[in-house]
């Protein structure tokens, strides 16, 4: 038992050190690499943006629209008792933009894109492709991790905004079809209570979540050992660790925004 706890603590501290090291390495290649004429390949970044962003649109849309629908119905169930059904509009919009969209989108992307990054880099590691890059004097972090990091960093906030809109659409459909709220009144109530800060706090969260997903997935992938089993393990760990860190970071950021009255 003591051995197990010691090993877990050692692995955890190694992981934290490794992830911080990877983050600094990525920042080095983004900001200092170009000064040394070691550029990041734009085509790789665009390819990863297409994969992480464009190809996640449908999934994010469906997750958000159904969340919006469910949220509208559940809140209507409570608000009907107080005769305040109209406030479904603002409740859906604010809770989606501030909380649900950034978190759900990040979890969806961690599952779809993070796992794929970990599996891809893990396979490259166990099939000596990473070693091949090193012997070709190509830094694997610059070549593989940086494009994926940048792609997630720019695409996750975009997906979060898409999720905000899709969720509001879901709520709008329930509000206007089932609850018989006038569409104009629904939108007016939405924008009356939804403030710009509700949107940008959500988007700010998504930047942090993107960093978490990219770092965890790349770290797990680049440190894969022991063949096919190792790739599976890296993929699972990438998703589980990302989920935990996203929820932890969300709690932390929400507290910061709440106590600083943002």
């Amino acid at each position, binding site marked *: 038992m003591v051995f197990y706890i010691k090993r877990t603590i050692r692995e955890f501290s190694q992981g934290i050190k490794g992830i911080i090291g990877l983050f600094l390495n990525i920042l080095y290649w983004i900001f200092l690499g170009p000064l040394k004429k070691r550029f990041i390949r734009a085509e790789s970044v665009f390819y990863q943006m297409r994969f992480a962003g464009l190809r996640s649109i449908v999934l994010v849309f469906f997750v958000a629209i159904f969340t919006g629908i469910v949220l509208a119905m559940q809140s209507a169930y409570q608000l009907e008792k107080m005769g305040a059904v109209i406030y479904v509009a603002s409740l859906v919009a604010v809770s989606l933009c501030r909380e649900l969209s950034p978190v759900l989108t990040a979890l969806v992307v961690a599952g779809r894109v993070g796992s794929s990054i970990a599996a*891809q880099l893990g*396979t*490259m590691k166990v*099939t*000596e*492709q990473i*070693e*091949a*890059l*090193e*012997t*070709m*004097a*190509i*830094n694997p972090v610059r*070549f593989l991790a940086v494009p994926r990091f940048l792609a997630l960093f720019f695409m996750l906030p975009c997906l979060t905004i898409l999720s905000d809109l899709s969720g509001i659409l879901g709520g709008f459909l329930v509000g206007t079809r089932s609850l018989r709220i006038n569409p104009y009144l629904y939108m007016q109530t939405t924008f009356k209570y939804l403030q710009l800060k509700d949107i940008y706090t959500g988007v700010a969260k998504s930047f942090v979540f993107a960093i978490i997903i990219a770092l965890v997935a790349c770290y797990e992938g680049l440190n894969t050992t022991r063949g096919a089993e190792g790739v599976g393990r890296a993929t699972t760990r990438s998703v589980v660790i990302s989920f935990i860190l996203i929820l932890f970071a969300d709690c932390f950021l929400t507290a910061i925004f709440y106590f600083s009255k943002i």
Partner: protein
Amino acid sequence: MKKEMVSLVGVSKSFDGRKIINNVSFDIVQGETFVIMGCSGSGKSTLLRLMTGILKPDEGRVFIKGKDITTVGPEELDEVRKSFGMLFQYSALLDSLTVNENVALPLKEHTKLDENIVRIIVKMKLSLMGLREFQNHYPAQISGGMRKRVGLARAIALDPDIVFYDEPTSGLDPVVGGVINRLIMDLSKKLFITSVVVTHDMSSVFRIADRAAMIHKGSVVEIGTPQQIKTSDNPYLRQFINGSPNGPIDFFREDLGIFEELSL
């Protein structure tokens, strides 16, 4: 006197307290094809990783073209690495890139050559390997022998002075293995490339080597020309060449303790 391209001086390396490479020293001169042979687990692939700077030795020094790669920083190591190529045992081609893109990768990363020039160089390298028509295929779409040849085309893309080969003929049929051996010889004789080949394929040793070293348990047990190797009475070498299960190389000896462990 020929220039020394690769030199190992008293190199040792351990993993988890177990010595894998034990005080190895040798020099490889320009244009030479030097073969490192030994049984599986003898430490020859580790030796190759030490020579390419993937691993750092615990003791000793590794010189590539006179530069000690055990003490240089990452940027200097990258400069040294541009002067050599490496063919991996399983080719290690990037599977998300086509054959063409794999060979072009070192050129795009390390030169400022125009796109058209890169395309021409890639075509030339692939022609040398007899693979021009497969340039738009992905690694998964071609055979193991072809992948090895693409790996070789990529290894020589930057016209290196040294090429390291990790088991270049393993897993290939004798004919394709022969093709790879001929390519190694051609590169060595025609382009004057220094070749360092790690293998346990004895037919390759006698065909391509100018000199060969036998490694056993991380130490060099014999070093010499193919003729000297053939006529050597070193018991390790004789057993290895004859492929005999009996002799000083005994895989089961280490496991004898199992009977004591099981109290039999």
